[in-house]
Structure formats: C-alpha cells, structure tokens
C-alpha cells in the first residue's frame, strides 16, 4: 500500500492527488478516447446514449446524492431540455448555444420547483416532483404549436460551426467532452462551500441552519444545478432519440434515473457514471443471458423487465452501497493484498430509527 504524505492543505482540496488514482482516471479517459477505434457503429450509438444517461444521472446525483432531495420526476427536466433543444435548433440557434439555453430553461424550472418545494421534505418532495413531472408531460402534450403535442417532433441533426456532426465517433466525442466538463464542474462544486452546504442540508437541517446555511436557498441552488445538468443531458439525448414525444419522459424514465444513481452509489460522482453503465448495458447483458437460458424460458415474454428488476433487487440486497462501494472494496483488496481482511467491510448489526424527524 502506498502512503501519501500530505504537505499542504492543497492536498485535501485538489482533485486526484493520489498518483494511483491519477493513473486510473487517466487510463479511463484514454480508454474512452480510444473506444471508437474498436467499437462498431451500433456500439458507439449505445455509448452515446450511455453518456447522456451518465450526464442525466450526474444531474440527479447533485440533487439526490448530495443534497438528499429525492426526485421522482427528473425525467421532466430531461424532457424540458430535449424539447427546448429542438425548439431552439429549429429556429436556427447554434448547437452549443441551444444546449446552454436548454439547460437554463430546465434549470430555471428546477429552481422554481425548488422554491416551491423548499418547505417540503423527504417523501413529500419526491411525490411532489412526480406530480410536477406529470404536469410537464401534460403541458408538453397540450402545447401543440410549441412541441408538436403527442404527435411529437423529429430532431434536427447536430451542426457544429457549420459542420454536420455524424453519428458514431463524432457524436461520441462531442458527448464525452460535455460529460467530462460537467464531471469536473460537479467535482468542483462538491469541494466548495455550496456543495458542502448541500451535504449539510441532507444530513441535518437544524444543524446546517444553526451554522448559517440557508436551507431554502441551498435547495433552490441544488435544484437549479441539477435541473440544468439534466436539461443539458436532455438536449444531447434528443439527438439520440431522433423523435420526441411526451410519453418518453414519463414516470418510468424518472424512476430509471433514480435507480441508476442508487445502484451506482448515492453521493458519489463515480456512482452516477457506474450506474449509467449498469442501466444502459443491463439489457445487453440480459440478451447474453437469454442465449444461455433454455429456450423455453429465454423466449418467455416479459423476461427482460423481470430480469432487470431481479438484478437490481439483487444488487441492492447484496451491495447496498452501490456498485461504487463494491469497487472500493475491490480496490482495497488489491492494494492491501495479501493483508486484506474481510472484516474491514463486515458490518455490525444496524437498527433503523425514525425518519419522521427533520
């Protein structure tokens, strides 16, 4: 095991001070950059979708993972972003500007929700966001001149500085760049006062308040940042969906986002990304599973959602800290080998206490 000597406070502030971690992240990015060399067009389009989900998950992570506000309606922001993106593109706004505007529109709506929700807590907030998402869906369906209603709209292609970005590796790199930018930004936020305030609000409102954290403002900020990022993800996702209709951004999609970050590991940036990997590629894994299953079962209708549910349930039962938690254990095992002690992560019995206090 390496020991890192900290010689300045900067060590606690900077990203990636541990050389091992630096190498790992470097390798990961290098690997991501090299992917188009080895992947087919289909796989790259899957990757682009994955990047959209990772970004959306990152957005939800800011809200739910950091500031503890569970949202059942985040797909609404995805949808707002997507529709806004298409609307701006149709009116000739350049791609990047449209993307920022799409984020802003989602963000402002998010802030409004945050404002309204600043007095709500826990489950009430979650259900209120669900209602909000249903209303957004309804409005998108009804605002025919703006959105094409339920008939939907098709999405214009991406043009960047007058050059049409093709599917495959070009889209992939573009999306990767956007994701990396936001990962960096959110990591920054996390080490800065606002990020800390969000975490404080999550852990104890009374305590945070007594230290000068303005609860309402922190929640609104969290909602804004979260919705902004998710809105941008929606803007990107629009191009992968080719065709938008309001039902696309319904409850199922919201739950999927939530599921993603929980399975990935709440409260960590890596969690959002690992969760997206999980959710995007689980269907592929199920496909492979299908091949080895006896054909009577493999062609059973509804097998796919069933396995989807089962695998997620299994993960939560056996790995409640999410996939990121599993990875940490694995890393510790490697680092401390052969001195790894199982006991390190065995848990003592735990007991629930009421969550009806705030």
């Amino acid at each position, binding site marked *: 095991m390496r020991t890192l000597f900290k010689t300045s406070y900067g060590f606690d502030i900077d990203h990636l001070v541990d050389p091992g971690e630096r190498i790992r992240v470097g390798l990961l990015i290098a690997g991501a950059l090299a992917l188009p060399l080895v992947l*087919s*067009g*289909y796989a790259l*389009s*899957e990757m682009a*979708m994955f990047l959209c989900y990772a970004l959306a998950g990152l957005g939800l992570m800011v809200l739910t993972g950091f500031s503890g506000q569970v949202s059942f309606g985040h797909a609404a922001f995805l949808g707002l972003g997507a529709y806004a993106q298409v609307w701006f593109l149709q009116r000739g706004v350049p791609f990047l500007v449209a993307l920022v505007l799409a984020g802003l529109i989602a963000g402002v709506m998010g802030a409004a929700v945050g404002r309204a929700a600043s007095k709500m807590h826990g489950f009430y907030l979650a259900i209120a966001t669900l209602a909000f998402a249903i209303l957004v869906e*309804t409005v998108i*369906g009804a605002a025919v001149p703006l959105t094409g*209603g*339920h*008939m*939907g709209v*098709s*999405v214009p292609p991406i043009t960047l500085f007058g050059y049409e970005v093709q599917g495959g590796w070009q889209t992939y790199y573009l999306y990767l760049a956007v994701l990396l930018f936001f990962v960096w930004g959110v990591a920054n936020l996390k080490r800065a006062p606002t990020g800390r305030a969000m975490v404080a609000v999550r852990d104890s409102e009374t305590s945070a308040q007594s230290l000068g954290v303005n609860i309402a403002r922190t929640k609104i900020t969290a909602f804004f940042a979260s919705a902004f990022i998710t809105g941008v993800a929606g803007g990107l*996702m629009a191009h*992968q*969906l*080719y*065709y*938008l*209709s309001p*039902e*696309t951004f319904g409850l*199922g*999609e919201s739950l999927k986002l939530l599921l993603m970050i929980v399975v990935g590991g709440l409260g960590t940036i890596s969690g959002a990304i690992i969760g997206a990997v999980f959710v995007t590629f689980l*269907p592929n894994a199920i496909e492979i599973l299908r091949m080895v299953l006896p054909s009577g079962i493999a062609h059973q*209708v*509804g097998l*796919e*959602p069933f396995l989807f549910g089962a695998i997620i349930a299994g993960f939560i039962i056996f790995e409640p800290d999410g996939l990121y938690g599993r990875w940490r254990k694995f890393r510790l095992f490697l680092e401390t080998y052969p001195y790894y002690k199982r006991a390190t992560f065995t848990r003592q019995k735990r007991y629930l206490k009421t969550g009806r206090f705030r």
Partner: protein
Amino acid sequence: ADTRGVTGTSVIIGSHTDLSGPLASWGVPATNGARMRFDDQNAAGGVHGRKIDFKVEDTQYQVPLTVRATNRLVQRDNVFAIILGAGTAQSMASYEITDKLGIPNVFPLSAARSMAYPTHPLHVSYFVSYQDQAVGAIRYFHETAGIKSVCLQTQSSEYGEEVTEGVTQGVEAHGLTLAMVGTHRTTETEFAGVATAIRNANCDLIYLGTTGRDTIALYTTLRQLGVTVPIVGNMVSYLPVVAKAAGGAMEGLYVVSPVADADWTDGDAFRTDFITRYRAAFKEEPTVQSQVGWISADLLIKALEAAGPELTEDALMKAIEGISHYTDPFGGPDLSFSADKRFGGNSLTLLQVENSAWAVRQADLPF
C-alpha cells in the same frame, strides 16, 4: 447481391415491438402470428431459396428502448427490412433511423396517419388510418341514423390526437357538430365525471378513442347513466375481452375496424389448422392481432416473392406497391397498395357486441 441483410440463403427481417408493456396485448399475438407464417415459409424452403430470419426486439412501448432496438436490428443484426413495429411515436423514431439507411419499415402496428403519410417510398401501412376509421364510422351513422352531433372521448396521446383529427374531419364533411371533446390519461379507470358531461351534452353519437380497459369502463358508465345513443370505438378496442367484460354490460358497443376476427367455427380447413397449430405453439387462443401478424408476414412474403431473386429494398417496395386486391384466408376485407395508396385497407368492418362476442354488422364499409 450485396443488399444489406440478404445472402444467398437468408434474408433478415426485424421487428421492434411491445412484448411486456401496455401494448403487449397487440405485440405478443402479432409477433406470434408473423412467426408462424415465417416458420411455415421456411419449412417450405423459404423465398427464392432464402430462409427468413425473423429477429424480434422488445421495446416495452418506450421510445428510448425502441431507438436502441432499432439500432440493434439495423447495425448489429443488419436487417433487410422491419415489419410490425409497435406504436406510433416508437415507429416514428425508428423511421428516423431506417430512412437514412434506406431500410424498408413496413406494416407497423399502428394505424396512425403518420405511419404512411406523407408518402415515403419506404413506408406502407396495412390498416386504414385512425382518421379514416372515424370518418367511415361517422359517415355510416350519418347516413343510416341521421345523427346531428357527436361527442368524443380520447386518450391524451398521439393516438387520441389522430382520432380527434378524424372525427373532426368526419363531422365537418357532413356538417355535424362536435358537441364535446374529453381526453384522459391512459391509466385512468374511473369515468363518472366525463360520462355525466357526455350525457348532458346530448349528442347523437359517442365516439371513443380509447384502448381496452378504458373502453370497458367508459362504456359501462355511460350506459349506467342511461345513455342510449350509439357508442363507437375503433380498431384498438376490438379485443375479445372488451366484448366479454362486465358480465354482459358491453352489449351494443360498436367498433369500426380495418380487420375482423375470422369465423373460427365454420370448418374452413385453413382456419381450423391455424387455430390448432397456434394453440399448440403459443398456449393461447389466436386473436385478430395474431391474424394481423400473420397477414403482415404473408404480405411481406408475397412481396419478396414478387421482387424476384435479385432482392433489393427498391424491388421489395415496388413489389408491395404492386399488390392489389389481396385477400387473406381469414376472410378479412381486401387490400391494395400503389405508389400513392400507402394504406392498404380498402374498406372497414362495423362490428357490435352481441352476447358478449363481436358480431359483424356491416362489412365493406367505405370511408
């Protein structure tokens, strides 16, 4: 030839459909019917020596999953054509992908106008559009019963919007009034409020843009409120369960449909064989949706045959456009396609619930 998805010995046909979501009651039997047709053809040596490789992807009726399914079919499985894609928005998204690559995407499991209109060389639909279904129904009741006003209740979905368009069109064509329009979310189960509103609107005909469960709930509620005017649904409500539901309370409901369930009991050899084999293979009764699947597959096979051994996308589409007055062995209405007739159906069937079953009231209904 080096056409995508076509080799000397096989041709790959794909389908993205709903096997486990809200439209599974359409997707599953249709897929089964098509699979049966393809398997039979393969057993008989395929088309021009090519076996048909039928790849089905479940979309759970979700657009994102449909996009991924289409990508898989197109990029990984390298399909030659797609048939029986489920859902309107889903198929629209799928079109965006297949059109770019010039892949035929035909006979979707949706009668929306946008499925084949505006005319596109790679799209055809085997149904009569929801609009035309509504137009046909309204014309029929206007001509036979002299209705003056219509009430409309639809789901708030693209399907609902299509129906609304059709009803509006029909109403305008005959100078009627549209007395009331209501929409509801697809998951709704309780309709007392709107039913009262509909009753109080006093219209002569009630048209439903509903699917299955909501048709039953709305119909029974309306009748309980003492509404006696004709109530008409369209092809989506044309399900056995709708006729059977509520212990006989569905008596009198009309539907207009471009397809009609075969008469399974008349001893016809084909149908008797079909029903026994279907039961054996899929452990359930065939429905009109199974017929739709079978017929779509049959149409495709006819077209593949007509396209000749040098199979290209273009040849297939030309061959489909050449189909005229096709009749199916289930006894349904005939179909024709041409360069500008992209919806195959030539007429509709009007059915009504009688003794908890669908009875044909008028075949070959024009629209």
